[in-house]
Structures are given as structure tokens and as C-alpha cells.
């Protein structure tokens, strides 16, 4: 197992945002976490990425207990996440956005050598920009990009930190249906070509069914089910959560 959580909990006062979740993922797999809004998906991600420390339970990565490692330490170990709300460096160029993230693996404190003189980093930046389809936009200021392009840049920044495991928090948020399909294909492609281990959060089941190796369903902070996409689709409990009886009056 590349990454594992055991009985992990995060309580905010009386609210059990994540409650006793056991989760694990093998090297090279793409696993999705789905659940309705407020199910605890993002909180779970933040426990894995290190933004939050667990109330109980532990996170192990490559056999090591990382429950108390900080976010930048975990990033250096190879756990990287993208943000549900686009988080880029708005006034820097597209190239610099990705290059800066790539630089994090090589140098932080060197104050004399020129940042653009590291040809390995520059090349890697261009490779990543090609992977996410932004190579011809490299000179533009990031804030000028369209919403969809910003979402790709977001993934590019994450890729540049050479993650062993990539946590994607609703990468298709705010995209049109056509863009969503395209982005979904890109994610599967990254997983195949770069042999990346990916955990994907979605609230839209249809996005993940086609591309995931496995799916975990969260509901009110608890794990509801964990199985292959086919079995999850057929699972009655899951259907109840999503088609929930309470929702009927609204859907009419």
C-alpha cells in the first residue's frame, strides 16, 4: 500500500467532519472519493495533505507514519494536492507558475544563481505545460487565462512538484460538460502515462465512473462503501444517499 489511513477522525468541536475512515491506495491506481456536499471529502483530503492534523487515527505513506508531518514536509515526500477553488500565482506567467513549483524540488534558498539557469527545471516545466496543453500559453499572465485553462494550470503546478501521489480536489469544478469530459480524459491519461497514483474527489458520480479503478463513498463523515465503479453504481445504500428520499420534493 502506498498510502493508508487507519481510523482517521477530524472533529471540529462537536462536528465529526471525518469519522473513523479506513482508506488505502496502491501504487499507480486511480481512486475516487465521492459523496454529497458536506460529506467530509475535502476535510479528508486536508488530513492526507497535512493542512489538518487528525483528531484520532493515523496516515501512513510508503510505510511511514506521516500523521504529524506538516504540509510542506508532505509535499517534499511526494504528496501533492490541487485545490477545489483555483489557487495559482495570478500575476506570474503561466511558465513561472509551473517553474516555481518545479523549483521547489531543487532550490529554495540559493540567492545568487539565476533562477532561469536551471535547464533541467525549465525543460521539465515545458514538458508539464505540454502535458496539460498550456505550452503555447506559457508567456501569458496566469490571471488572464480562462477558467478551464486555470484548472489545467492548477494540475500543472501540482505535477511540477513530482508527486508520488496526486490529490485532485474536484478538478472539473465550474467546467462546462464538454470541458469536463476533456478534463476527465486528461486525468486518466496522466495516470496512465506518468504512472501516477491519483486520488480524485468528486460530487458528480458520472465524472468518476468511467476513469476510476475504485471508488469510495463518504456520507456524513463516514465511509459508506468502497468498491469498483460498477458495484458502486449498483449499490443500493449509495443510491439512497444520492437519490435521497429527502430530495424528492425538490426534484419534481
Amino acid at each position, binding site marked *: 500500500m502506498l498510502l493508508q489511513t487507519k481510523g482517521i477522525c477530524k472533529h471540529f468541536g462537536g462536528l465529526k467532519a471525518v469519522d473513523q475512515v479506513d482508506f488505502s491506495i496502491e501504487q499507480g491506481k486511480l481512486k475516487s472519493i465521492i459523496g454529497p456536499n458536506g460529506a467530509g471529502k475535502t476535510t479528508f483530503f486536508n488530513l492526507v495533505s497535512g493542512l489538518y492534523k487528525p483528531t484520532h487515527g493515523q496516515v501512513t505513506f510508503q510505510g511511514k507514519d506521516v500523521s504529524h508531518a506538516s504540509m510542506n514536509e508532505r509535499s517534499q515526500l511526494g504528496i*501533492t494536492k490541487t485545490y477545489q477553488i483555483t489557487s495559482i500565482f*495570478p500575476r506570474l506567467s503561466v511558465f513561472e507558475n509551473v517553474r516555481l513549483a518545479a523549483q521547489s524540488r531543487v532550490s529554495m534558498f540559493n540567492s545568487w544563481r539565476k533562477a532561469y539557469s536551471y535547464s533541467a527545471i525549465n525543460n521539465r516545466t515545458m514538458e508539464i505545460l505540454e502535458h496539460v496543453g498550456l505550452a503555447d500559453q506559457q508567456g501569458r499572465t496566469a490571471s488572464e487565462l480562462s477558467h478551464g485553462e486555470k484548472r489545467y494550470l492548477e494540475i500543472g503546478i501540482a505535477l511540477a512538484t513530482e508527486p508520488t501521489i496526486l490529490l485532485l480536489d474536484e478538478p472539473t469544478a465550474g467546467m462546462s460538460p464538454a470541458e469536463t469530459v476533456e478534463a476527465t480524459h486528461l486525468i486518466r491519461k496522466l495516470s496512465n502515462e506518468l504512472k501516477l497514483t491519483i486520488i480524485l474527489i468528486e460530487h458528480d458520480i458520472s465524472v468518476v465512473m468511467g476513469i476510476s479503478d475504485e471508488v469510495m463513498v463518504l456520507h456524513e463523515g463516514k465511509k459508506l462503501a468502497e468498491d469498483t465503479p460498477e458495484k458502486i453504481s449498483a449499490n443500493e445504500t449509495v443510491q439512497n444517499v444520492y437519490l435521497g428520499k429527502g430530495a424528492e420534493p425538490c426534484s419534481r
Partner: protein
Amino acid sequence: MSAKQKTQETTSYKPYSWQAILEFRAMWVVLALGLVLPFVISKPLATEIMVYALFALAFNLLLGHTGIISFGHAGYLGAGAYAGAMVVYYGGVGVWVSLLAAMAGGTLVAVLIGLLAVKRKGAYFAMISLAIAQMLYFLALSPFKRWTDGEDSLKLPPLSVDFPFHIDLSDQLSLYYFVFVIVALAVLAQWRILSSPFGHALKGIRENEDRIRACGFDITRIKFLSIIYSGLFSGLAGGLLAIYLGAASITILFWMTSGIVVMQTVLGGTHTFMGPFIGTAVFLYLRNNISNYTDRWEMWVGAMFMALILLFPEGIWGTIVQKIGERRRPSAS
């Protein structure tokens, strides 16, 4: 074969933005103008502009390039001035050693403020830095009066440099060029620092602190180093100031120094490299001329500051850069 072709394709990047190229040229133009400045305005004013421009650039390492607001920069400048002056006064050392001591003094205060405040953000950092600078002011004023001469400034004898060749610093023009060369080297060093991986990380912190942390950067230590650099260059400016004034004076440590450097920097443009330099030149030129006519120069400078900020919301140089960018955009896309 095709793989080789592909790597060649992927290396076709052009990382330098037009802003960076513009700033780089502007830096050389300003430094070239510095060569003739003492023939355009009075020599002491030109020297003062150089010293305070270096101070403002050092201040902007934190404000504009890292996104840290400091209200305590008088502490670094004052520590530099007193450290530089005291080693001359009590130790009888030369000018070069005095400047090294000034840098050490500024750096020491930066370490102190850094250790106490590096994890604080926004107004909290500003207040802690202000408090420490005020503490230094009162320490220099009274408990350490034996060494600092308190309200009477610590006066220096006429100074001269003997290495690499003789420069008589009591001559106004020689003093100007001595200060100018050191300031120019410090400006180039700061440009170099900002072009380094560290300097780029600073921009990342300014743009999006959470994201740069998530990329694996150690924010606390990077900020700490940034505070140290700011203290070091401010200290150097302080050392030059003591030489220019011929004394280390308590007013350098007064909180107003910290306020004025904010005004000078904002006036020039915080999001630029040369903005603080230009802002300082304009500010000191206006102050000098207005104070020739009236003792109430603060009021007139204040009014002009407001007028200029209304005209140039991003600072004088910052707004010019912005306008050039707007003009470029239609043709670029």
C-alpha cells in the same frame, strides 16, 4: 531521432516577461542618471537620495517582494548607523570596517525581529517590528546614553578612505560618488537576489502563500532569510547615512523614519523593483524644495503625496509599468 527533435522543441521557452526586461533596463537608466545627478541637484541632496533609495529598496524586499508589512525599519537603519558610527568613534576603525559593522548591526536587529515575528502576519508583524524599533529608540535615548550620547548625536571625525585609493569623504562630490558606487553595487546585488530561486520563491509567497507552501516551500525560513536581507541592506544604508551626516543621530531611530520609508516606497510603486528608488528621489526632492519656502513642509508634502497617489494609484513607476502593459496587451494577443 524524433525524440531528439522533441527535446529541442520543449526547450523553446522564453521565461523573461516584458516587465522583467523593462525593470532591468530601468535599473541601468536610473543608475546611469545617478552618475550625473550631483550636477543637476545639490550634492548633499543627491547623496541623501542615494542613501534613502537603498533603504527603500531594502524595505521593499519585504513589502513589495515578499508581502510583509514592516513598521520597524527605523530599527534596522538606526542599528546600522549606530553600529557603523560606534566602531569608528570607539574603535577608531576605517570606513570599510564601519560599513561591515553597519551591515552586521542591521542584520542583528533583523534576526531579533525575525525570531519574534516571522510567523506573524499582516498587522501583527507590523506591530511587533514597530515595538522593537521603538524599544531600540528608547534604549539609545536613555539607558545606553553613555555610548550613544542620547539626544546629542554621536559625532564622527572627518573621514577618508585609503583603500583601494585615497578618497576624501569630507569633499561633497567625492562623498557622493563613494556612496553612489556602494549603492549601485547594493542595487545590483538586490536585483541578483530577486532573480535567484530564493527571489522567485519570495514572489510566490507574495502571490499565494498557501499554494507555495503546498508546493513544498519552507515559508518560515524563506521569510526569515528575506527579513535578514532587508536588515542587511538597511543596515548598510544606515552606515552610509552616518557617514553622510557625519554622525549617528537619534532621529534616525525615531518611528517617523519607518513611516517615511513606507511613503517613499508606495509613492514609487511597491510591485516594482525600481519604484522605491524613484519614489525616494521624488519625495526627497519635493521635501527639500518645499522646506526652502516653509517650515510646514510636512503639510505640503502630505498634500502632494495624496495628489500623486490619486494620479498614480500603483505608485509613479508602478503606474507607468501598468500603462505600458495595457498598451501592449491588444498587440500581444
